[in-house]
């Protein structure tokens, strides 16, 4: 009997060890913290967790989940109903049913806080004017209202809000990152905020009461595959109702103002609230982190570049021989170039999932046009007399290509490859949005936290890489192209 238990135990242990749960995170402060809580909670119960943070917003996260590139990420009920299900005023339960039916996804019960849009003002202002709710604004047409650009445009934004409450003021647009500063310096009186923003407690701001329930509920919750391991679902349910608005605001503030890491904040939440001790990974040194991310960045950039060279140079040669089809193909690669990076990365997810592969494919597509166009232009620019002489001497098509046309096209070809390489180093920073890592992780996280030093940690090495690439290509040209044939540099 004991034997059976032992075997059973081993089987379960084996099955568990083999199971890795992929946790995603949207690229903003709260997203990182909640995902880290999920990740550490699952790890404390013996699951292996792979983190896919910095995913570029709802679109990328949801696509990644739908395509099973990730298993779970934190999402908000309001976003799910409005943006994904395109429904208004949906009950939580019917939303869950619709998600299961349409997408095979499921949500846990809410964490317990509502991260809605809200209007905020300073405590001083509120005391002085006795404004406590949105309805109170109606009698103060002189107020200066500054709203984030996104809030001005959203369905649940300023225009409809002002209509509903019959507010007389005109709002001006400003960058959300600057709004809190403008508010405390009394440049504006009222602005929009996420109700759990760390700044609210930091600056002691007053959240105006939404008397008419204009803002929908944005209940935070875990969104996961319906067929996620039952034990994992059960573990995640331990978060149900455990995080209230105050707690979330505090955690956001700890990252923003106390400069704690997400891992630290998540660990301290789990130990105080759920009495779970987690071993948050040892902090890696900044230098090692930069070096390893630079390595990933170079891997992304150069594997895509190499693939693009191997594809576009022969294609360019072929098009040079078949001028009739060349225009069509050039237009097509030009079209690829015009797709915004984030959109192209999102398109990749259903086919390649998230991570390194889709990033390399996207970078490959971006590198095609400069290389293809310059290969073709370089070959076409070769003096026709020289081509005629090559024929007249008796060179075969391939000898002519190898000994005459390619060497003479080389300066333009190298310029094309150089352009592609520099574009790739820059674009590769966006690859962080689909979890491919690289220097973009610093930049994306830094942007989300409004942390300049973090942004520079990614931006400076990327700039250095771009400069090194320029230098490398200049040297390459020195080796491959006789001095008098080099372009002006």
């Amino acid at each position, binding site marked *: 009997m004991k034997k059976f238990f032992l075997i059973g135990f081993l089987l379960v242990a084996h099955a568990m060890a083999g199971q890795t749960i992929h946790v995603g995170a949207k690229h903003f402060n709260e997203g990182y913290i909640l995902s880290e809580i999920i990740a550490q909670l699952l790890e404390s119960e013996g699951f292996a967790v792979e983190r896919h943070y910095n995913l570029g917003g709802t679109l990328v996260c949801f696509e990644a989940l739908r395509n099973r590139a990730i298993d779970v990420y934190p999402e908000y009920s309001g976003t799910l109903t409005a943006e994904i299900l395109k429904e208004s005023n949906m009950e939580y339960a019917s939303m869950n049913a619709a998600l299961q039916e349409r997408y095979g996804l499921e949500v846990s019960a809410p964490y317990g806080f509502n991260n809605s849009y809200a209007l905020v003002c300073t405590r001083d202002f509120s005391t002085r004017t006795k404004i406590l709710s949105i309805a109170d604004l109606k009698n103060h047409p002189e107020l200066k209202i500054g709203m984030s650009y996104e809030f001005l445009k959203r369905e649940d934004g300023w225009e409809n809000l002002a209509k509903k409450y019959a507010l007389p003021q005109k709002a001006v647009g400003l960058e959300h990152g600057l709004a809190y500063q403008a508010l405390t310096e009394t440049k504006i009186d009222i602005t929009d905020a996420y109700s759990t923003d760390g700044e609210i407690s930091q600056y002691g701001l007053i959240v105006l009461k939404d008397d008419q329930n204009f803002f929908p509920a944005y209940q935070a919750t875990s969104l996961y595959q319906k067929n996620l391991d039952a034990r994992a679902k059960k573990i995640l349910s331990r978060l149900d109702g455990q995080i209230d608005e105050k707690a979330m605001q505090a955690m956001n503030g700890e990252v923003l103002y106390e400069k704690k890491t997400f891992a630290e904040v998540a660990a301290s939440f789990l130990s105080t609230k759920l009495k779970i001790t987690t071993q948050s990974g040892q902090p890696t040194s900044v230098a090692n982190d930069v070096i390893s991310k630079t390595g990933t960045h170079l891997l992304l950039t150069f594997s895509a570049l190499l693939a693009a060279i191997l594809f576009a140079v022969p294609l360019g040669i072929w098009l040079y021989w078949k001028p009739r089809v060349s225009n069509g193909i050039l237009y097509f690669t030009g079209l690829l170039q015009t797709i915004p990076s984030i959109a192209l990365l999102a398109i990749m997810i259903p086919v390649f999932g998230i991570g390194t592969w889709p990033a390399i494919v996207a970078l490959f597509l971006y590198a095609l046009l400069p290389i293809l166009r310059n290969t073709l232009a370089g070959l076409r620019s070769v*003096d026709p*007399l*020289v081509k*005629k*002489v*090559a*024929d*007249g*001497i*008796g*060179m*075969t098509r391939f*000898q002519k290509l190898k*000994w*005459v046309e390619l*060497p*003479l096209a080389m300066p333009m070809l190298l310029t094309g490859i150089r352009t592609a390489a520099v574009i790739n180093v820059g674009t590769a920073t966006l690859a962080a949005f689909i979890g491919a890592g690289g220097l973009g992780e610093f930049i994306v996280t830094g942007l989300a936290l409004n942390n300049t030093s973090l942004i520079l940690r990614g931006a400076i090495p990327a700039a250095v890489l771009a400069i090194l690439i320029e230098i490398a290509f200049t040297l390459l040209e020195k080796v491959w*192209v*006789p001095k*008098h*044939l080099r372009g002006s540099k």
Partner: protein
Amino acid sequence: MVELTEVSHGYGGQEVLTNLTIRFQENKITAIIGKSGSGKSTLLQLINGLLRPSKGQVSVFNQPLNYNQTTALRLRMGYMVQGTGLFPHLTIAQNIAIAGKVRDNSQPGARVNELMELVGLPSSYQPKYPYELSGGEQQRVGICRALYLNPPLLLMDEPMGALDPITRQDIQQEIVKLQHLAPRTMLLVTHDMREAKKLADFILVLDRGKVQQFDRASNVISEPATQAVRDLINASLDS
């Protein structure tokens, strides 16, 4: 040696050459002369196989031209064009020896020096690039390149068109000297009757794609067959 039988060539309904039947003399210099657009360059390209006749047949080395094996054929004919057409990315030595590379991927050999000496170029030029040489020097390199494999047939498409009179005279003397040392069949396209008179054993006069006269040089000049020939002689010798 080189023979055209009822050869016509034209693009899009317009004939550049009409019904040519010519047999060029072996080991002689034949000047092909005519105004611009008379079809002289086209004729050379037909012989080289760069162009195919729309009618008739071209024979070279007593064989009908096989367009699937032009490389072997072209290695036996030197080809010079106006403006030299040197490869700008290759050194003088590599330019001269290019036919050897095409034939068997061989490196420039002693033959380079030999030829440069023949046309009066210092061997210190070997590692230089074409742009470092004057027009006349480049032209001499062009001659060396055409002669590298010692071809029995030499096609020259206005090789002296862009040169100043003194350099032109030098090169002309070079050609006379070469022919004296080792005779070969040379076809020299020119629009200059004086050049033709100086270099050629035979003269072929073309006008609007048709043969006006094909005879010994002295006969053409003393007894022009048509008005077109007379005009050419007058135009060249007057200027």
